[in-house]
């Protein structure tokens, strides 16, 4: 039972972290110290934290490399926008619309995950990185020429241009090719984001702590031994990958419904790599680390805006320091010692 306690401890640490973040933001809002720029960053922070958790499931827990997770975010985002926009008149309550949009975004991203995962994960080697890389680019290009509009007759879709949609004059454009989604009603909110983040944390942590998660980690550690122990390797790799894709899709919906416009190029290769950086800096497989890295590295560029000239320099230094702190055994040991010492001094 000792081991179970340790897992439970990190799980509660992560829930606690989210709670502290929530309370801190609420206090800042109540006391008026919240700057507008930070306020605008809240949903992106939560979205990227969820992305980092999703990718960590693949990279850290399952031990595969995905270089196209922004693609799943994109699939989720634009599905969410289409669903939310088309329900605009029929469902008045925006939280319900957001919920349906998130579920729809997660579902389509999961389907994309299955379509990629089934052929690729049956293969033995590290093909996932290459295929996800291609997937991310393909999704970006498809979304770049996707035109969707809605009128009284329902949804219209085209891969040519806006005119070929043949909409009624009263119709409304939802997706506009390279310009992406325009005129989005912002229905994502901070509290909705926190709730989604908590649900994602529960799903991932409970999955990892279950029989399924144990199998996924075993396959990561030694595939041949896992097969020899009677594990269906493809099945468990697929569960990890598709769950991750669905969660990335939900993050995409939350993100997109926080802006009035979102372009497909937002979810490009750079975004995939950025999320990978969160996971690596957080210490691969370390959920707490991934969450902190995602949050810090999302706000940092904005916070450093006032030091225009030194911004990138400071950003680079922080990156290096975080990297050393999270991945260096000696530094880790030092921090551990210091914490113990402080605890003793306090107690």
């Amino acid at each position, binding site marked *: *039972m*000792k081991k179970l306690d340790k897992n439970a401890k990190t799980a509660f640490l992560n829930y606690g972290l989210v709670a502290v973040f929530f309370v801190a933001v609420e206090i800042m809002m109540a006391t008026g110290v919240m700057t507008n720029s930070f306020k605008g960053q809240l949903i992106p922070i939560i979205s990227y934290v969820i992305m980092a958790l999703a990718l960590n499931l693949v990279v850290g827990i399952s031990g595969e490399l995905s270089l196209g997770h922004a693609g799943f975010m994109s699939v989720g985002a634009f599905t969410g926008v289409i669903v939310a926009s088309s329900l605009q008149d029929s469902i008045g309550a925006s939280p319900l619309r957001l919920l349906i949009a998130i579920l729809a975004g997660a579902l389509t991203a999961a389907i994309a995950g299955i379509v990629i995962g089934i052929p690729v994960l049956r293969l033995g080697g590290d093909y996932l990185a290459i295929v996800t890389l291609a997937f991310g680019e393909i999704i970006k290009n498809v979304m770049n020429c996707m035109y969707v509009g809605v009128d009284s007759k329902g949804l219209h879709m085209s891969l040519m241009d806006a005119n070929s949609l043949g909409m009624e004059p009263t119709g409304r454009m939802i997706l506009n090719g390279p310009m992406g989604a325009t005129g989005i009603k912002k229905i994502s909110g901070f509290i909705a984001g926190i709730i989604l983040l908590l649900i994602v944390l529960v799903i991932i942590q*409970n999955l990892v702590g279950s029989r399924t998660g144990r199998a996924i*980690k*075993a396959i990561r*550690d030694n595939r041949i031994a*896992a097969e*020899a122990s009677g*594990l269906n390797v493809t099945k468990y790799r697929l569960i990890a990958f598709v769950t991750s894709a669905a969660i990335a899709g939900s993050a995409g919906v939350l993100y997109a419904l926080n802006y009035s416009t979102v372009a497909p190029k937002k979810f490009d290769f750079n975004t995939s790599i950025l999320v990978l950086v969160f996971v690596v800096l957080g210490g691969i497989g370390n959920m707490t680390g991934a969450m902190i890295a995602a949050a810090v590295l999302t706000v940092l560029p904005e916070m450093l805006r006032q030091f225009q000239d030194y911004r990138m320099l400071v950003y680079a230094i922080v990156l290096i320091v975080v990297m050393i702190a999270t991945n260096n055994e000696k530094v880790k040991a030092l921090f551990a010692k210091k914490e113990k010492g402080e605890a003793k001094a306090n107690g």
Partner: protein
Amino acid sequence: MADKKTPVLETKHLGIDFGGLTAVDEFNIEVEHGEIKGLIGPNGAGKTTIFNLLTKVYKPSRGMILLDGTDTQGMTPEKVNRAGIARTFQNIRLFDKLTVEENVKIGLHNHINYSSIEGVLRLPRYWSEEKKAHEKALELLDIFEMSDMAGDVAGSLPYGAQRRLEIVRALATEPKLLLLDEPAAGMNPSETEELMNNIRKIRDEFGIAIMLIEHDMKLVMGICENIVVVNFGKIIAKGTPAEIQSNDDVIEAYLGKRKG
């Protein structure tokens, strides 16, 4: 299930080629239920390759493998394990980052009955099945007096303990036939002695058949009821330890070399 007279394992004309090299050829053996069989031979004789054929890590080039009378052709390693063959590896293959207990629970995996959804929602079956698995894992670890190491990370264990853990994990899958590839490698004489007793205890308590590859002749001669000797991929002798020890071919190919 087949009757008791059917051997738990039977191979017919089993063989495999790697390019031009015939690593195993005309390998015909029968392993009875509850038997401890030794598989010996000089380095590079093809012993590990035979285990890899039996567990489908390699696809046989020819021949047949019958498990309890059922042809295992076309089975994956996973299916073969579910059908009743478990193994350890000459070059230890543990789940290094998992704990000792988790390694055993992977062995128990197919006997733990709750779905991924039940796990995520932490429904009652998750708790009861995990509790059962925890108790079962400790019970199995106790065979080697390893239950106090349950929470340790497997990769950090000393070599001998890693070998023992591999046996426990294999045993946890509830096999009919357990294949041990050099279980005593790297162990000192007292550890080997203890291992010998434990292998016998496992056979007696679980009633399973055990086939083991081993270079330690004291261990092989001490616990195996029957021995198969291979050299250059072919069987050169079969028999009881006494018969093998006095077999001229074996002495020449194998034991003779040892005597110098």
